[in-house]
């Protein structure tokens, strides 16, 4: 309907303009006055007199206010001027364009890895279903390992491929061999996710009635396989787009680990150095890449669906099968392991440097000691409590925001799409630039994106509830729209939304750890997991346990996160509201009642 179309389009436009404007006024938002650090960065001798600082403020145009800054920045962009570095005084454009080339090369290689991984993962179910056997949902254990967060996988690959085996370059961007490990680190998690989604989708598609009809009609496995893919893929393009967009976030972490001079590392460096013009331009380029990926996914979907997309006649996939006991074994085991570690280490002191530096694991020090002689078991255990506590708080916030926003399905389209597409790392860089680095800042950054899947779920589930007969009859009984929402829709949707939010807790904890690892979250000496890993990395050759302890904890949390997200996609009661895979857009609200 035209009016609905306008609300959706306006919501998208306002959100995109809002994000660009936010980046534009970043220097004003940044509460910390940058002039002192700029003065220090430019010259060590110059006195920090009020006059000198005022001169810098005037030079940077910081006194112009948010609108003045925004106008100046946008007019520069329109002339093709990306800005002037606060540190070097030179234009930021050329360096960033060079970094962009490096990042795009890396992302291209990562994309190949991702597609290869996905193809490997969904070949077995396709093979089975195309031959008329019942498919099985993607192997959870195998997929869980490919679904490690990029920063963790990068660290592990660096450890194994470059340090222990010595096959690849550990750092830098020197030739084709520099591409292999970073591309694997960026591509494997996304490819694992896509492969798992397609495998699950194929299994569900295989149960649809037309498949049996085709088999009876004598379709060959090849024909059936192509048809199955064609039927399954369009529903997943949104998810695939999110994975592609996630590559931009992965690039920041991976480029940092492997010291690759790409866009992500440039942005992170600019945030640390408070070179806000470089940060602004870098962000804009990263967002541009995201938008490009999103557009490509939309185009692919349109090409795959053709006219069916416009006429709204795409059949809804069948509901997924209820979870089996085996599916709960993996999350149960991972959770139990974490509980044991926390119980063992919680009574120990995580901050006292009471042991020899980098002491090897022993009976007294099961995980060994870090570079400051601190007990790693204690640090991992306390880190778990701190991370989980923060993550629980974030979960609560995302649940409240997600439910409130999800109740406005059309107006929230833009914010949901942008928040869904924005990798937490990128938002973390922006928050750190505006507010400085802290655990609270990291929590804010993660919360800023983590509400979106909940909102998308609530939007889809509440649309479903509103279509139920006992709700459609309410207006005739005199129940107004507000009462329908608060007395009927919210109570029905809330339990499933809360479950959905709680199942995301390990994933949120990992996102917090990623920010800690990149120096965008908790600050030393906090025993935060990401920070522990980052602190151990320089000693990876002399004392691998300094890295293994946090890596083990993070891997366990990843397995927990991935296996739980699998549970959340399989509703237990077939009668409940449809569980929608996180990130899918809400189905459009009910058409007017069928004619006649």
């Amino acid at each position, binding site marked *: *309907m035209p009016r609905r*179309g306008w609300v959706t389009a306006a919501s998208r436009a306002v959100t995109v303009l809002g994000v660009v404007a936010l980046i534009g006024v970043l220097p004003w938002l940044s509460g910390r006055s940058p002039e002192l650090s700029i003065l220090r960065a430019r010259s060590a001798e110059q006195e920090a007199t009020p006059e000198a600082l005022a001169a810098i403020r005037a030079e940077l145009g910081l006194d112009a206010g948010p609108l003045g800054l925004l106008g100046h920045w946008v007019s520069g962009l329109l002339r093709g001027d990306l800005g002037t570095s606060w540190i070097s005084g030179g234009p930021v454009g050329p360096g960033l364009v060079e970094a962009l080339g490096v990042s795009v090369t890396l992302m291209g290689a990562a994309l190949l890895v991702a597609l290869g991984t996905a193809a490997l993962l969904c070949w077995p179910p396709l093979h089975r279903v195309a031959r008329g056997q019942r498919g099985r949902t993607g192997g959870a254990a195998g997929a869980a390992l490919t679904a490690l967060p990029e920063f963790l996988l990068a660290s592990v690959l660096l450890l194994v491929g470059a340090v222990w085996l010595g096959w690849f370059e550990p750092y830098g961007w020197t030739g084709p061999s520099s591409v292999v490990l970073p591309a694997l680190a960026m591509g494997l998690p996304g490819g694992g996710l896509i492969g798992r989604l397609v495998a699950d989708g194929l299994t569900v598609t295989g149960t649809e009635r037309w498949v049996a009809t085709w088999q009876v009609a004598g379709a060959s496995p090849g024909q059936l396989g192509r048809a199955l893919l064609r039927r399954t893929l369009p529903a997943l393009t949104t998810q695939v787009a999110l994975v592609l967009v996630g590559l931009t976030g992965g690039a920041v972490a991976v480029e940092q680990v492997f010291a690759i001079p790409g866009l992500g590392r440039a942005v992170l460096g600019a945030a640390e150095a408070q070179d806000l013009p470089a940060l602004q331009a870098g962000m804009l380029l990263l967002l541009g890449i995201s938008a490009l990926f999103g557009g490509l996914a939309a185009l692919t979907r349109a090409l795959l669906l053709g006219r069916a997309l*416009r*006429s*709204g006649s795409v059949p809804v996939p069948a509901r997924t099968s209820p979870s089996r006991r085996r599916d709960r074994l993996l999350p149960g085991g991972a959770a139990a392991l974490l509980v044991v570690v926390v119980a063992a280490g919680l009574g120990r002191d995580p901050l006292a440097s009471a042991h020899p530096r980098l002491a090897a694991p022993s009976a007294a020090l099961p995980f060994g000691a870090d570079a400051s002689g601190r007990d790693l078991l204690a640090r991992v255990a306390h880190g778990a409590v701190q991370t989980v506590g923060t993550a629980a708080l974030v979960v609560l916030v995302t649940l409240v925001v997600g439910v409130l926003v999800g109740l406005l399905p059309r107006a929230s389209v833009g914010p949901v799409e942008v928040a869904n597409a924005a990798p937490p790392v990128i938002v973390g860089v922006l928050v750190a630039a505006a507010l400085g680095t802290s655990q609270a800042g990291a929590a804010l950054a993660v919360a800023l994106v983590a509400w979106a899947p909940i909102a998308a779920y609530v939007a889809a589930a509440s649309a479903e509830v509103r279509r*139920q*007969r*006992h*709700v*459609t*009859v*309410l*207006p*005739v*009984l*005199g*129940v*107004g*729209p507000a*009462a329908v929402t608060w007395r*009927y829709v919210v*109570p*029905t949707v809330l339990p499933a939304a809360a479950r959905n939010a709680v199942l995301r807790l390990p994933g949120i904890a990992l996102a917090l750890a990623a920010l800690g690892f990149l120096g965008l979250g908790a600050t030393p000496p906090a025993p935060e997991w990401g920070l522990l890993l980052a602190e151990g990395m320089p000693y990876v050759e002399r004392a691998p346990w300094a890295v293994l302890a946090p890596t083990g904890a993070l891997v366990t949390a990843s397995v927990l996160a991935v296996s739980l997200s699998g549970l959340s996609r399989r509703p237990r009661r077939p009668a409940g509201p449809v569980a929608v895979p996180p990130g899918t857009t809400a189905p*459009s609200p009910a058409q*007017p*009642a*069928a*004619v*006649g």
Partner: protein
Amino acid sequence: MSGAARGVTDDAIEDPVLAATGVQRRYPLSRGWSWGRRDVVAALRGVDLQVAAGERVGLVGTSGSGKSTLLRCLLGLERPDRGTVSLAGRTVQPGSTASLRWYRRLVQYVPQDPAGSLDPRSTVRELVTVPLRHLHVPGDHAAAVTTALTRVGLDPELTDRRPGELSGGQAQRVALARALAPGPVLLLADEPVSGLDLPVRDQVVQVLADLSAREGLGLLLVSHDLAVVARLCDRTVVLADGLVVEEGPTTDLLTRPAHPRTRDLLAAVPTLPA
């Protein structure tokens, strides 16, 4: 009319005639943007219909004839593109909840699959109280719930049960009691017995017949089932392709159909009850 006397003392209406006059309604066919003209389907193409106080009217037609759309317009859920819906001369159109309260107290609705229209989390008491509270019906609501349940032949002992704990027939009667609670003078019923097994269907038809015979409750019964219409309705209106093609006393219409579409409907019924 006991119903009117109970619920609507503040805006009592002398001669409540529900009237649709020249009602037209079109729907766009495709969603989203398309170049050039958008395809539309004309669901209603100028329908005139009147239901007087205490009258029992059947509205029949095949799927796609416009019955449900007409009903949504009559319920004030949808605005006609042209034409008006009115009760005793007062226009009825979609608007705020408050602006339609007077109408909803006088004209209530029994949906298709009445049992499915009951919120599974609420008790029978809560379900029947919903229209009393939201339509601001004055008086003792607990007593009104008991009265409504008694009118449909349900034991008031059931008030603490939830829909899942009721039999099919009981659930249908609860839905009916909920519609009766605010004291309407006219019930609009949309295929109220389609999809029910025969014993339950007979129970519900019997309750509707008793109510209209005993209490003078008006009834507009939308159905494609001519047997139910023959049993309940004095007058029948045949809708085809968004137009009224024939109307008249039910017995005449069923024995001597004039319009081909009416004959098609009759031909689809293997036997009629004697």
